[in-house]
């Protein structure tokens, strides 16, 4: 039986695939700055947007994009200005976000099933309008993250150096914050706000077990994200499981497989080949730099 003959299944699959590519492309920068959990926090804020959207009878995805973007900008401003209170300010924002979301969804006529769909993802709720939002925003994220890779890499790798290079560090930081918010909200449909961070982080964590450079890590993470999202939706459809949970468990499963393979490969190489001693060549100075 072909489940994907149904339009809503096809919409869910296409949405998930776009998110599977876009989430790790952005998540790699978050992992690089050791902000792997920021997506979770922004997801909490997005839930308030969902609640507001349901209550006001507007598109929950669009209202959530706005709410999460505002939340991400506030977080970025707290980060760049604030000092010791930053931690607490973030905690207030996160818990306020999820409490506000639960309350607003409760106030609207939507039942707890609807809330669950946003918390953990749902295949049947991606409307054609939602799919267009996901496609447009997802492709925009993907293009931005790939096109600005050298600059975003520089800012995430060494922010002070980026500033002395004259890069627009504040603008790039805000772009990353807003990008995180947008990714979280569009991924809400496939994996839900409570699990979205996993799709941004786990493929990157898996890829970097075997990669040597940033570019290679990004490519491998996007491939793994695509696989986890596609296979996750297929599993959810065939086995009638929650899509978010299926996608995330597949991503974590691929992390484990990659980690085990990498460990096995290293052990095998150690046994078959003596450890190569790095040869330090004397420096040559044939180039005159001005």
């Amino acid at each position, binding site marked *: 039986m072909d489940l994907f003959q149904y339009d809503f299944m096809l919409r869910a699959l296409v949405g998930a695939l776009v998110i599977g590519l876009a989430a790790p492309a952005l998540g*790699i920068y978050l*992992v*690089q*700055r*050791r*902000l*792997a959990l*920021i997506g979770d926090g922004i997801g909490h804020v997005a839930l308030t947007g969902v609640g507001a959207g349901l209550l006001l009878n507007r598109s929950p995805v669009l209202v959530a994009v706005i709410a999460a973007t505002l939340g991400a900008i506030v*977080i*970025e401003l*707290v*980060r*760049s200005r*604030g*000092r010791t209170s*930053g931690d607490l300010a*973030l905690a207030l924002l996160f818990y306020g976000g999820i409490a506000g979301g639960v309350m607003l969804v409760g106030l609207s006529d939507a039942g707890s099933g609807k809330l669950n769909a946003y918390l953990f993802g749902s295949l049947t709720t991606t409307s054609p309008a939602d799919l267009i939002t996901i496609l447009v925003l997802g492709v925009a994220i993907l293009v931005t993250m790939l*096109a*600005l890779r*050298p*600059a975003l*890499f*520089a800012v*995430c*790798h*060494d*922010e*002070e*150096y*980026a*500033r*002395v*290079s*004259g*890069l*627009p560090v504040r603008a*790039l*930081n805000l772009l*990353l*914050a807003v990008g995180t918010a947008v990714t979280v909200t569009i991924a809400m449909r496939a994996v839900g706000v409570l699990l979205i961070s996993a799709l941004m982080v786990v493929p*990157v964590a898996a890829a*970097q077990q075997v*990669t*040597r*450079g*940033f*570019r290679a*890590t990004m490519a491998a993470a996007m491939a793994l994200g695509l696989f986890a999202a596609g296979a996750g939706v297929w599993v959810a459809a065939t086995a009638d499981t929650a899509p978010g949970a299926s996608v995330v468990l597949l991503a974590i499963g691929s992390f484990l497989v990659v980690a085990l393979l990498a460990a096995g490969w290293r052990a095998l190489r150690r046994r078959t080949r003596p450890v190569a001693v790095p040869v*330090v*060549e*004397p*420096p*040559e*100075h*044939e*180039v*005159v*730099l*001005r």
Partner: protein
Amino acid sequence: MTAPVIQVAHAAVGYDGRAVLRDVSLTVTAGEVVAVLGANGSGKSTLIRAVLGLVPLGAGSVTLFGTPQRRFRQWHRIGYVPQRLGAGSGVPATVGEVVASGRLARRGVLRPSGRADREAVASALRAVGLADRAGDPVATLSGGQQQRTLIARALAGRPELLVLDEPTAGVDAASQEAFAGALRDFRDGGGTVLLVAHELGPLRPLIGRAVVVHQGGICHDGAVPEPAGHHAEPGHDHVHPHCDEEPAGLWSM
């Protein structure tokens, strides 16, 4: 060769109301190699961070290549070498990728990397003796090799001024020599250098002038003092805690 590259006039810097630099004036002209010496906490790192605009001035002014620092936009003319690579990010990066960051000041954010960029990265790697390590993850390099990666990153932008923060601290002898060689080539090509150091080691013959910072002020500006001299002494009393710490933030490394 006498145009001022860096002009610091009556600069003052404070953190949380505690003065770190007071009424500091310093001029570096084109082609000079100037070492800023001093004990830990004397304010010498803060001085070059203020020159680069990484810490705000409380008073006074900084002029770079004749332009007030606030309005200075030609950052490609400056190559900055920080004390060490950031605390190590989670994602692996190759030596070549890190050095390629040095081209951004010249290329801008939007233009993709081209042939000139690749050639500049390759020649910068050759200048520090790391040409064969371009594809290796930075994390697998020794401390000295990582430091050489950072100077290659600065050289890749083909700057006119190099600003280095304790480039030889904790660096092995081979790397110190490679480092001194790269710096000599840079100077011979007409470059200007401002570097902070705790001890000079193999860099000593390159240094044309020394500035000694003590308790937030400049107490010597001229010939390189003898290593036994009171203020340049490596084991000199650490009077203040280190003062180059920025508030650690959520989005920062």
